[in-house]
């Protein structure tokens, strides 16, 4: 499905608004939309809402062989998916430009800035290391996917706990969460992306553009930073002309935003930790906004089965006694017919078009002749394969085409050296 194009008047309306420092949702130029961070019951599962944009991240890990040139380092693998749920223009499994761009940005923001300690993920040098995999799913696209994805990914990584391992000799045991508490990853710093969109040849800029604003922008500048005011990645995209001063100004704004968001993530992590410690409920089921009119929750329901049980028995009983049912022909099992050693047939209705059953219609005399003939052919072949090639299959065609021959015949040959042969298949084709 293609994206609905933006009309010219809509475009002009948006741009005019931006010129007058007004945004569609009433935000100021440098405002972020509301950010909501929720964690699932699994470790490393995190949903981030940035306004209406929604992103789900799941961190998982497995033991793999390390890369040859880095035998003592674990692997951080990032994969961002644009789910077709997020926007009608996203097709599953397509490598679009946007997807490549987001994936590379995420990789550079998290992996190249070394946000987690990959050396602590080594189990046996050169043999087994942990591969930490971050799957980011975009669930609803309302602009600024990059910021939402980076928040979800880093929050997921900070929340994640990998199973503990023990090494005895060359035996590596992975402990289940019941045996030993899983261990968190060691996070060096938390890089977070901040996006700036530029309008009217770079005269105006907006922080955290929504989907509409993204569609009229000239270009985008993404700055990834951590709260220590270290820049982890910068990327400009789209055909914009930036001035150095603009870049420096953006980096200043970004540092403020990043420290706010970092605090928010820490708070969310702290809340989740507390909830888990107290044994209270956590997970998405608990973060459902019950007060909303579109939400309904129901406590577990009991199912009364006292009377229904009789019903089900009745069903089994009733149908078992019904022998007149058209489908149940219990008790009458037809016995199979051996057509050749290794080829057996059951069923007595119509023949298939391949010709395997058609010999029934032939004369018995012919049958016997053939039997004798084939007995010689068969012996040497039996050991290898059960398929016998019949040499004189031309006759069969004749048989089928002449109704006379097929009239008087009731006795079926019980055994008959016959099997599907390639030659026959070919011969039969003109009949179809």
């Amino acid at each position: 499905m293609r994206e609905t194009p933006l009309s010219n008047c809509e475009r002009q309306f948006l741009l005019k608004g931006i010129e007058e420092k007004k945004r569609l949702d009433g935000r100021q130029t440098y405002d972020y939309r509301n950010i909501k961070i929720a964690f699932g019951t699994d470790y490393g599962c995190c949903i981030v809402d940035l306004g209406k944009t929604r992103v789900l991240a799941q961190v998982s890990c497995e033991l793999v062989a390390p890369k040859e040139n880095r035998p003592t380092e674990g692997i951080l693998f990032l994969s961002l998916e644009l789910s077709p749920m997020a926007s009608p223009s996203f097709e599953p499994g397509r490598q679009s430009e946007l997807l490549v761009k987001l994936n590379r940005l995420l990789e550079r923001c998290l992996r190249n800035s070394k946000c987690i300690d990959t050396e602590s993920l080594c189990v046996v040098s050169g043999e087994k290391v942990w591969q930490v995999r971050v799957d980011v799913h975009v669930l609803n696209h309302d602009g600024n996917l990059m910021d939402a994805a980076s928040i979800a990914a880093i929050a997921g990584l900070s929340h994640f706990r990998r199973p503990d391992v023990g090494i005895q000799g060359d035996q590596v045991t992975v402990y289940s969460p019941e045996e030993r508490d899983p261990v968190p990853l060691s996070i060096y710093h938390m890089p977070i992306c901040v996006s700036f969109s530029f309008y009217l040849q770079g005269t105006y800029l907006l922080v955290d553009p929504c989907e509409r604003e993204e569609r009229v922008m000239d270009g985008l500048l993404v700055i990834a930073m951590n709260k220590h005011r270290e820049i982890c990645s910068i990327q400009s995209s789209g055909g914009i002309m930036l001035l150095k001063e603009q870049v420096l100004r953006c980096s200043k704004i970004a540092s403020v935003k990043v420290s706010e968001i970092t605090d928010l993530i820490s708070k969310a992590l702290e809340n989740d930790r507390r909830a888990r410690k107290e044994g209270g409920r956590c997970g998405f089921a608990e973060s459902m906004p019950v007060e909303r009119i579109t939400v309904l929750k129901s406590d577990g329901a009991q199912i009364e089965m006292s009377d229904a049980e009789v019903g089900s028995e009745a069903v089994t009983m009733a149908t078992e006694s019904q022998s007149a049912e058209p489908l149940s022909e219990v008790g009458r099992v037809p016995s199979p017919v051996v057509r050749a050693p290794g080829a057996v047939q059951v069923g007595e209705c119509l023949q298939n078009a391949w010709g395997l059953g058609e010999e029934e219609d032939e004369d018995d005399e012919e049958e016997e002749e053939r039997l004798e003939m084939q007995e010689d052919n068969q012996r040497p072949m039996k050991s290898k394969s059960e398929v016998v090639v019949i040499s004189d299959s031309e006759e069969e065609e004749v048989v089928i085409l002449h109704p006379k021959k097929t009239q008087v015949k009731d006795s079926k040959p019980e055994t008959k050296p016959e099997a599907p042969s390639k030659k026959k298949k070919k011969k039969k084709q003109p009949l179809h």
Partner: protein
Amino acid sequence: MKLYANHRKNNKKKKKKKKFTQVHVVYQISMAAGFKTAEPLEYHRSFLKENCRPDGRELGEFRITTLNIGSISTAHGSALVKIGNTTVICGIKGELASPPNDAPNNGYIVPNVDLPPLCSSKFRPGAPGEQAQAASQFMADIIESSEIILKEDLCIEKGKLCWVLYCDMMCLDYDGNLLDACVIALLAALKNVQLPEVSINKDTDLAEVNTDKKRRLNIAKHPTASSFVVFDDSIVIVDPTAEEESLSTAMMTVVTDEEDRLCMLHKPGGTSLSGEKLQDCISRAVTRNREISKLINTVIQSVKTHK
């Protein structure tokens, strides 16, 4: 021409047993082609009203099922099954591998269903389509659910060496009821499997294959499948052809084993069925299991006696 030949034969059979009336045959031959193309659904309905089907079968009747085993000598086990025109060939190859980490005394069974473009114009070349993938998953589920072979039997040395059985089922001609044919083919091929004996040499720690000594697999259960389609939300027919499948409103496959236990009741959506109707289908499936067990036993017997 083919049609004509078949119908004539049906006509002849009628004298023997069936209630196939003369009227039907004339009707079929003269008007069939046009009516069938223009209103395929009506065409089928007019038969179902009379409790029979365009190819002369009753509602609960299977097509002729033919089984041939051991026809592929390069495979460790093989079987060719035809249900009517539907033809499926299954070849099983065993390979040696190290057992899975989480279950060191198990082997693997890897089923795969292939629907190549040659079997029907419905299928395109390239990556397997949804139907092929769903069928592969169905076969994997049956193997899992019915415990047709105990996976422990495939282990040679705990944590070190085991068999991987690659069961490749390929459809050569698609005329409906793929799953039944696949299950029969798989079961017969597994019964046909002869694996060489393998042992681990204690000194060298290497596997030694003894091709002279062959052993057969221990088949624990004998599951068979019976497929049904539903017409017009109420009429249930067994063993559908490709055309019946495409016109039906729902499909269902029941898998039972020789102890009459169900291994699978697979109904991927479609119109709903009541418990009673399901029960009918299950009863038919149970009978079918007997037929097929007999079929497989006979075929194995026939090979043995001729040796």
